């Protein structure tokens, strides 16, 4: 049949509209409309940002635990000289998988996961802008992770380090499929990371509650906006590079083969053009957590909000001009090196600005000392120390000495764990009540914190000395005569303490989910919108979309209009606002649950994994993907009829 189309006038009766803040027939229907479907099918079809966000966070945490256990294995092997516990072949797989998992399957995704859950709540809307894409992104992420650990289980996991330099990772020196699995894992995580970034940017630009101008946007949302842009401009570099690597290995191209006009350094440029910004898109969300949590527990807005936002943007901007500081030991021209040293110093300034502003905030605030704040305060000690060693690494002559030694290992854990993981744990303690409706145990929390903090320094501080004493990174063992034994043993003890503290955290979570004291809407007396709704939030997030008049909406008196009305209750409608000043612009029909993202992800997974073994998989493998994508996109007649009722031409 050949369809025709006529613009129907909007004849939606008013009682099919939201706007009531109390419980009414309409709000019940709204709740039904936004709920996920029940059962396993519903679980697979879920597109709600809360469902996706939660499973995203849990998955990322599992990868953290597994990668952490791999780290514990490394520490045991390194605890004493000439240890025979783990041989070189296994050790090299372990440290590679540890680094790769921590970076690509934990640190970056977990921040996006937190954003997927929190951002729509913080900006006062009912779902992210492209929820089906987000669901697809999650499945790709999950399948990629499962793939690499399956590879590990069958002794096929990569063993060339988390930046997999050719020619070592190239066709000549890494036979077998190990490097290919690494390159494909990158493709999986890039797809996921990029998709979620596009979703976040769109959500933040178009779905903010009326009145939430950019200037009034919470600092965590700012941090995620900046991060998402960084991801979009940084990840393509490594996507391209890993594709080149896999092509060098599978179809005989010569991108990195010096003998045929290629160049191993090309890889390093492409990788670090991504890799350096990457460490900042782990760091910047951490800064976002800092600002949110400090404001709440200092009982006042963060000092110097504008400076904070500018610092985030400046950090993101500079971070694209630092990549060569990972390559100082290659033959880069001297002038070039001086420039990258200068940039490495310059990027310290925005970080400094934020540190100083937070200190000013605490200085002028009144402190509510609870576990989240403890984790936040640890940042100052650990990240500061790590940042300073970063400056030392930024100075070419010093880097030439400590490059590729345990000094770098120390630096990277100080900044990653101090700058991202401690704030993240703080964030988990902080938002757990919102997500589950129950508070986490405070006593266990303190134990978790102090064990982590002390264990962390015991584990990683000695590494600075080891590096200066000549211990290279990525060695599966070392001779007794080097004298590196004692400090390594100490470091292992620290690693064990961290393990115990993480275990305590898991215990705390499990206990609190059942027996934690009920949280109520806003247990910390915080200012941002996610605390304006119930804990856990209803399926529709807000019965009525709030109207925002201030950058600290819950701390300042309400004004009229207080909230939005007129969105359909029997259809997933949200209000879309203008990019800069969040004026109401149109009603956006948010996609409903569907299995197709899941199916499409499976098809893509088959294609990616098969292409490790034959290039032709790219051809026949993309047919099922296409079919799935069409089915995903194709509108359903019933759904369309419903929309025509609500339709209003621009």
């Amino acid at each position: 049949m050949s369809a025709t189309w006529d613009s129907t006038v909007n004849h939606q009766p008013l009682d099919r509209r939201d706007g009531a803040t109390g419980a009414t027939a309409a709000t019940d229907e709204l709740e039904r409309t936004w709920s996920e479907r029940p059962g396993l099918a519903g679980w697979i079809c879920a597109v709600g940002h809360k469902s996706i966000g939660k499973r995203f966070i849990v998955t990322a945490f599992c990868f953290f635990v597994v990668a952490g256990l791999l780290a514990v294995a490394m520490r045991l092997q390194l605890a004493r000289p000439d240890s025979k516990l783990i041989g070189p072949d296994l050790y090299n797989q372990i440290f590679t998988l540890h680094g790769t998992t921590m970076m690509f399957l934990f640190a970056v995704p977990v921040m996006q996961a937190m954003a997927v859950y929190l951002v729509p709540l913080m900006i006062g809307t009912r779902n992210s802008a492209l929820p089906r894409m987000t669901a697809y992104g999650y499945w790709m992420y999950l399948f990629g992770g499962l793939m690499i650990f399956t590879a590990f289980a069958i002794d096929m996991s990569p063993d060339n380090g988390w930046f997999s330099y050719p020619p070592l990772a190239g066709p000549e020196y890494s036979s077998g499929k190990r490097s290919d699995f690494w390159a494909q894992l990158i493709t999986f995580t890039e797809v996921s990371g990029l998709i979620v970034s596009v979703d976040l940017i769109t959500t933040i630009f178009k779905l903010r509650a009326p009145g939430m101008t950019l200037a009034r946007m919470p600092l965590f949302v700012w941090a995620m906006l900046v991060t998402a842009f960084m991801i979009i401009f940084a990840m393509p570099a490594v996507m391209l590079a890993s594709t080149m690597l896999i092509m060098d290995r599978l179809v005989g191209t010569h991108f990195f083969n010096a003998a045929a006009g290629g160049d191993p350094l090309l890889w390093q440029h492409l990788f670090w053009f991504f890799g350096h910004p990457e460490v900042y898109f782990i760091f910047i969300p951490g800064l976002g957590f800092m600002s949110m949590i400090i404001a709440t527990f200092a009982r006042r807005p963060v000092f110097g909000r504008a400076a904070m936002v500018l610092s985030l943007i400046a950090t993101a901007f500079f971070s694209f001009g630092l990549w060569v500081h990972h390559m100082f030991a290659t033959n880069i021209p001297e002038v070039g090196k001086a420039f990258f040293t200068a940039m490495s110093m310059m990027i310290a300034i925005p970080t400094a600005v934020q540190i100083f502003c937070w200190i000013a905030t605490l200085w002028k605030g009144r402190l509510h000392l609870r576990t989240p704040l403890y984790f936040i305060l640890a940042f100052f000690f650990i990240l500061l120390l790590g940042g300073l060693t970063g400056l030392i690494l930024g100075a070419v002559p010093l880097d030439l000495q400590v490059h590729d030694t345990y000094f770098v290992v120390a630096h990277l854990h100080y900044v990653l764990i101090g700058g991202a993981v401690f704030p993240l744990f703080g964030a988990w303690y902080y938002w757990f009540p919102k997500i589950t409706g129950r508070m986490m145990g405070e006593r266990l929390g303190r134990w978790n914190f102090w064990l982590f903090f002390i264990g962390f320094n015991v584990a990683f501080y000695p590494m600075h000395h080891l590096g200066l004493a000549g211990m290279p990174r990525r060695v599966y063992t070392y001779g007794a005569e080097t004298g590196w034994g004692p400090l390594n043993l100490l470091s292992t003890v620290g690693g064990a303490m961290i393990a115990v503290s993480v275990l305590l955290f898991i215990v705390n979570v499990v206990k609190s989910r059942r027996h934690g004291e009920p949280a109520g809407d806003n247990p910390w007396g915080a200012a941002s919108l996610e605390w304006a709704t119930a804990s856990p939030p209803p399926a529709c997030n807000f019965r009525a979309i709030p109207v925002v008049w201030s950058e600290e909406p819950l701390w300042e008196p309400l004004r009229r209009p207080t909230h939005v009305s007129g969105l359909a209750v029997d259809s997933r409608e949200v209000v879309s606002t203008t990019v800069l000043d969040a004026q109401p612009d149109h009603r956006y029909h948010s996609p409903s649950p569907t299995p197709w993202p899941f199916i499409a992800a499976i098809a893509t997974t088959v294609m990616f994994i098969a292409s490790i073994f034959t290039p032709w998989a790219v051809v026949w493998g993309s047919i099922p993907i296409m079919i799935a994508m069409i089915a995903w996109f194709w509108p359903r007649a019933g759904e369309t009829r419903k929309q025509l009722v609500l339709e209003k031409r621009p």
Partner: protein
Amino acid sequence: MSDKPVFPPDRLDTQGAVAGETLDVAQLPSYVFGARGIMWWGTMGVVAIEGTVFAMAIATYFYLRTNGDTWPMGVPAPDLRWGVLNTLIMLASLLPNHWTLHRAKAHDLGRVRGGMLVCLVMGAAFILVRVFEFRTLNVSWDSNAYGSIVWMLLGLHTVHLLTDFGDTLVLYVLMLTGPLEGRRFVDVAENAEYWDFVVLAWLPVFATIYIAPRF
């Protein structure tokens, strides 16, 4: 800043009114064209990503060039014939493409169908010509680094041609069979904008593959 009125009165009259406590949005349009829309931002995100990929690939080309002492590495530069022809076809396709875009904004279903059909025909044409382009690159991907990057550049763009052709085809069928609603015209508009990107992205790629080796 928190004192500045959020909703200028003029907006309130036209776009729903403050019914006491609430800001009524019932009368707002249920879909919009261009940068106001959600899908536009989604599309732009994809464009930004793929644009960066092209930029990186081109940068790689010139990086390798500064490395190799001869360029192109001991092989003749690609023949211009097919490359130029394809460039012309692609540029020409911008006309029906933009016409379709405007007809979509006017909800003119009949002409939208026609415009898309023309675009599809041209799309088929430049995919066909692309085959000859590969044939006349005068180098294989596995002969040296130059061959590798040239094939990669052309391959990257070809993938875009194919996907864009596919998207357009699916959307065209949908516009024929339905089910239709106003938002589908937005999809057509976004698709047209993406087509623009695929064509414009070709110009630097063309310059790199065909012109650069001649200097």
